[in-house]
């Protein structure tokens, strides 16, 4: 059955039909939340929160995006506000304007530094980590990424470029270079 029609049925009182969305998109949402919240129990709780919130706002889903993108956006905002409450500090790094793209690519494409890269990603802000997750690992379309992160689609490429430079700085000079 078409998802939009299924949503109409749920809104009409067939609450149990929501199980379809939980089964189908639960894993996807959990993967996104786990990227920002490594603790498994917290990530499960936040995934559940996102689906409960999505259910309570189901009447506001107008099909501007797919259900999966919509629920991912809710999961992202839920997770970010949870992280904000936890007062987790993230590094803020000044962008170095004189840095060439070749220099950045050389460091980021060095396969022997995978662990360093992984550690550097963990130090990025939640929105930056989420952008990498959605773009590189989930290979989502730019429009979906922009909708989930609530940013202009035209700024995604610039943001990715800035993140790559930030990762370079973190890998080259470590945490001390703030």
């Amino acid at each position: 059955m078409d998802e939009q029609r299924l949503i109409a049925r749920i809104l009409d009182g067939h609450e149990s039909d929501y199980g379809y969305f939980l089964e189908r998109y639960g894993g996807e949402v959990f993967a996104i939340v786990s990227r920002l919240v490594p603790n498994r129990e917290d990530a499960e709780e936040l995934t559940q929160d996102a689906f409960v919130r999505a259910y309570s706002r189901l009447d506001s889903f107008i099909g501007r995006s797919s259900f999966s993108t919509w629920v991912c956006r809710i999961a992202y905002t839920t997770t970010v506000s949870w992280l904000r409450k936890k007062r987790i500090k993230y590094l803020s790094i000044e962008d170095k304007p004189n840095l060439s793209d070749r220099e950045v690519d050389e460091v980021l494409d060095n396969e022997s530094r995978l662990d360093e890269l992984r550690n550097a990603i963990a130090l990025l802000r939640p929105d930056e980590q989420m952008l990498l997750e959605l773009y590189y690992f989930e290979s989502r379309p730019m429009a979906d990424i922009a909708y989930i992160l609530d940013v202009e689609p035209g700024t995604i490429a610039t943001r990715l470029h800035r993140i790559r430079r930030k990762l370079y700085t973190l890998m080259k000079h470590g945490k001390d270079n703030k």
Partner: protein
Amino acid sequence: MLRALEPKERPSLPSNFAYTTMRRIRLERQKSEQRQRIVAVCCVLAVTILGIGGLFYMFGATIWQSMVTISKRPEDLSLALPTFFCLAFFALLNRWLARHYVGRNKT
């Protein structure tokens, strides 16, 4: 190289995730219905009290005078008993309809 960091296996949710989430959704719905019911009762009470209070504030003396006059003539109270039964019947009918039709739409 960033793509090389993609996790080999996606983290998976426990098998009862859908069941526990649906249970939580039901609980949340019941709580919100309870809240709405309390708000509705409070609103009805507030409006009733304000309405009756307003009537007494504006026409208190006249209402009191009429009640005293009616109580002095018992034949004017002959309508009170049928009115009471009529209201009780409507209250019961309303309860029966709500239970049979409103409750049935919630799955």
